[in-house]
Each structure stands twice: as C-alpha cells, then as structure tokens.
C-alpha cells in the first residue's frame, strides 16, 4: 500500500534519514521503533509531506506521491496524527472533529462524527468543552478521532503514548487495534516498544537514520537484540524525555 524506496531526508546540511526502505501492507499495523533521534518522526513527516526527501520515492497505492503537500496527501488518504497532541485548543471538541473532515464534501460527516463519538464516549460527554481543557489522554483521543474523520486509508500515528499514564496508554493501544479491525491501515511510531509490538503485525527498528532490523512483530518480541536494547527494562511508558 505504502512503499518507501531509498528515502534520504535532510535538515539543512544534516542528513537525518540515510536510505530508508519500508513497506506497509493494507489492513495491518506496522510499527516503527527506535531510540530518540533515530529518525522515526522524520520518516513520518516525510511520508506525510511535511518534509521533502532529497532522494528516493514514496509510493502510495501504486502512485508516486513523493514531494506532495500534506493537504494533497490527505486527499489521497494519508492522515497524520502529529506528535504531542496537536489539537485546536480554543475550539470545542465538536469543532475540532468538524475540522478533521475539513476537506470532505460529502453529506455523511454528521453521521460519522456521531459514530466516532460512540467509539470515544469521553468526547461525546465533553463535546461542547474547549479542547484545551481536556486531559492529556483525552486530547490524544481527540487528535486520533479527528484524523479518522478525514476517512484515511492509512493512519500515521506519531508517538500516541507520549507522556500518558500507563492505563491510558493501554486504552490508546486498544483503540489503535480497533481502528485496524475497522479496516484502516496504521503506521505507528513508538518508543514504547513492548506495547507496540504486541498489537503490531510487522515492525521496523531504526537507528541513526537507518533501518537495522525488520521482521514480524511476534519475532521481534523474541529477538535478543531488541530485548536487550529496548525491552530490557520492565517500565513501559514514562521513562523518556519528550522530544
């Protein structure tokens, strides 16, 4: 569905991605793991069109989409939930959801907002509240719900568990699983390797701008290199500094 071939992205003179090859198959959860600064978010931004790669191609549904603008990519079906809960804080929850369907012109938006709110009951409860007054976990759910309203074929989630309490993280991961079961492909960037691999079908591990390991998620969970590097500690979520 999505295919990256030899992607190289730069921040000015600094090369952040050194030839990334990555494939996302329809109907799966693919996860991208790695430490801070490995280039996970850069990869996401490149796919979503926020950054333009210097070399390489991004193909989506067999079409070359390299270098398109984010709004063009969204129309093609790639939606990004950016890192750190980018919500519109002085709009209400319902207005935020409506903004998610910004580019759509069909008449089902109202029904679908209803539908999404059933999936996220907390948003239904708080629909007329300012989004900025929600808690961190609720904001993250709002950001995901908003992205779903653009009816994406591929949902890019950039560290949805960042800075959230373990209980909320578990809830978010359940939701991601449900999204996949409802037919949306998910590409998930995570530092929380254990949780991510549990719900994912396939995983890639990045280090300093390169993919060093890839494989089935169930295999990666057992892989001694990964266990040592990422799963060694028991602690799951709040042992990192937000980037």
């Amino acid at each position, binding site marked *: 569905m999505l295919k990256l071939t030899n992607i190289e992205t730069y921040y000015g003179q600094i090369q952040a991605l050194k030839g990334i090859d990555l494939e996302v198959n329809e109907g799966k959860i693919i996860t991208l793991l790695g430490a801070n600064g490995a280039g996970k978010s850069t990869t996401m931004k490149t796919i979503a069109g*926020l950054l333009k790669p210097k070399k390489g191609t991004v193909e989506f549904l067999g079409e070359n989409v390299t270098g398109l603008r984010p709004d063009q990519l969204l129309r093609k079906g790639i*939606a990004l939930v*950016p890192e750190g809960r*980018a919500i*519109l804080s002085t*709009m209400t929850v319902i207005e935020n959801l409506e*903004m998610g369907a910004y*580019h759509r012109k069909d008449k089902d938006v109202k029904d679908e907002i209803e539908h999404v709110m059933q999936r996220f009951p907390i948003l239904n409860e708080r629909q007329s509240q300012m989004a900025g007054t929600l808690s961190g976990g609720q904001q993250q759910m709002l950001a995901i719900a908003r992205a779903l309203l653009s009816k994406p074929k591929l949902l890019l989630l950039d560290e949805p568990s960042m800075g959230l309490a373990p209980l909320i993280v578990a809830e978010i991961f359940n939701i991601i699983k449900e999204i996949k079961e409802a037919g949306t492909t998910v590409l998930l960037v995570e530092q929380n390797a254990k949780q991510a691999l549990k719900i994912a079908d396939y995983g890639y591990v990045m280090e300093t701008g390169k993919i060093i390991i890839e494989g089935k998620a169930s295999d990666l969970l057992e892989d001694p290199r990964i266990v040592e590097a990422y799963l060694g500690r028991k602690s799951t979520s709040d042992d990192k500094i937000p980037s």
Partner: protein
Amino acid sequence: MLADIINPYFLQILSFILINILLAISVYVPLSSGQLSLGSAGFMGVGAYTSALLTIHFDIPLIIGILAGACVAGILGIIVGIPSLRLSGVYLAIATLGLGEVIRVIFVNWESLTKGSIGLTGIPQMGREILNFAKGFGFDPAMIGLKSNQFVYLVIVLILLLLVIATIWFVVRQQNSRVGRSLSSIQMDEKAAESMGINITYYKVLSFTQGAFLAGLAGALFAHVMGYISPSDFSYHRAVEILIFTVFGGSEVILGAVFGATFLTLVPEVLRFISDYRYIIYGIVLIILMAVRPQGIFDIHLLNRLKGLKRSKGGVR
C-alpha cells in the same frame, strides 16, 4: 436645522475614525491567522500614492484610482507575503516593519515621481469631485439646506461608512466560513492545521494579502479625503499607531479593532482642552490597559457575556 448639527470639524474626525477602522481591520485580518504584520503603513502609502498619482497625472475617475491603489497594495502583499511567510511572530513583525520603511524611503527619494518629502498636493478631493458631479445635474447643496463644505464632508463620511460596513460584513462572513475556520486553526496550531489537510501557505498568503489590500484601500481613501499626502504620513509611527488600535480594542474579535480605532482617534481630540498633556494621558491609558488587560478591551468572553446579558433581558421581557 440640519445645517447647525453638521459641523465640518466633527465630520472630518468621523472620517478619520472610519479610515482608521479600515486600517485596524487590515492588521486584524492577518492576525486572525497568527501573523503579526506591521506593514500596514507601507501598504497604506502604496495605495495612497498609486491612487493620487493616477488621478493627478492621468485624470482617471477617483473610483478606479482608489481600486487601483488597493489592488497594487494587494499585489505587493502577495509578492512580499510568499517569502516572508517562512517567518513568524516577531520576525515577521520586524520584516514587515522594514518593508514599510523601505517603501517610505522610496517615496522620499524618488523625487521625479513623488516630489520627495514635500509630498503630493492637488490630489482630487473625493467630496468636491462628487459635489461638482452633482452640480452637473443641477443639484445644489442649498436645496437640502446645506452649505457646500458641509455637503462635501457629509458625502465623504457616508461613502466611508458604507465601505467600512461592507468590509466588516465581508470579514465577519469570511470568519464564519471554511476560510475563517482554516485561518483560526492555523493561528491555534500550524502543525495541526497542516495535518488536517489545510494548505497553510495558501491561507496565510490569502490573509496577508487581504490585510495589504485593505491598508491600500484605506491609504487611497486617505489621500482623496486629505487632498495632500507626504511620506511622513506613512512612517513607522503610523504603523505602530495602527497596531495599537487593534491591540487596544482587542485583537481576538473584529469589534475590538473597530472600538480601538474609534476610541483612540477620539481621545486626542476630546482631550484637546488640556492639549499639553493629552499625549501623556494617551500613553498612560495604553500602559494601564496592557498591564491590566493584555488581550485588549474586547475579547470573546466579554462578547459572550454581553450576548448573555441581552438574552437574559429578553427573557424578562
């Protein structure tokens, strides 16, 4: 009877208020997409000089001159807007302030065209042109009990009022549309707006250009109300003054821009009787306001409360 009420002095102040409202809106519109532009004075100058030169040298109708002035300012807004949108916050403010100064210096030095710092005189005055036009049809202000100069100022105020109302109507309509939604989401969070599929470059240039167009329009009107312009009318002081209108009144709502321009144009006039101290008072008012109410007099909460007040009164009735 009518003639006694209509005092040219009041009418002139009223017309300045209306022009200042247009200028305040020209800052408000870019600000509603999160861009602080201090280029209004420069764009105003471009509009004023374009319209004045066109009407003086080519004898074209005022309305076309004014529109041309606004359009030239708008086009300049696009040209300047595209590269400067990489900047944000104070950096954009400084860049646009610099632009205004460059424009002013060009006016001072391009003497063959602009007559330098002496300024342009003999710009067709809007009210007189209309008076002459009306006289051509055999109309005389005395027929409705007015002196000629009263009629002239009255016509100016009416035209400006119509333009201001049209502008406010347009901006309010736009705010409640898809365009307005994307502008305010860009203001809140550019990254989020981008990930929702909003073409942020397009909308930022759009709002910046609208601001430039409005400033150009106000400048062209200013030229044809005053009949005389010089580069010092469009200096750095003017840019700051325009910004203060918007910030003082409240930069979140359009009513703030309208109120700020009205109030701050009136204060120096009302305080004329203590002329030596009036700018001290003006300054103190600004300092107190910024310390006590940094978001300006009007904000969304105050508006909602006022609306609530009206509604509850209606309920009692």
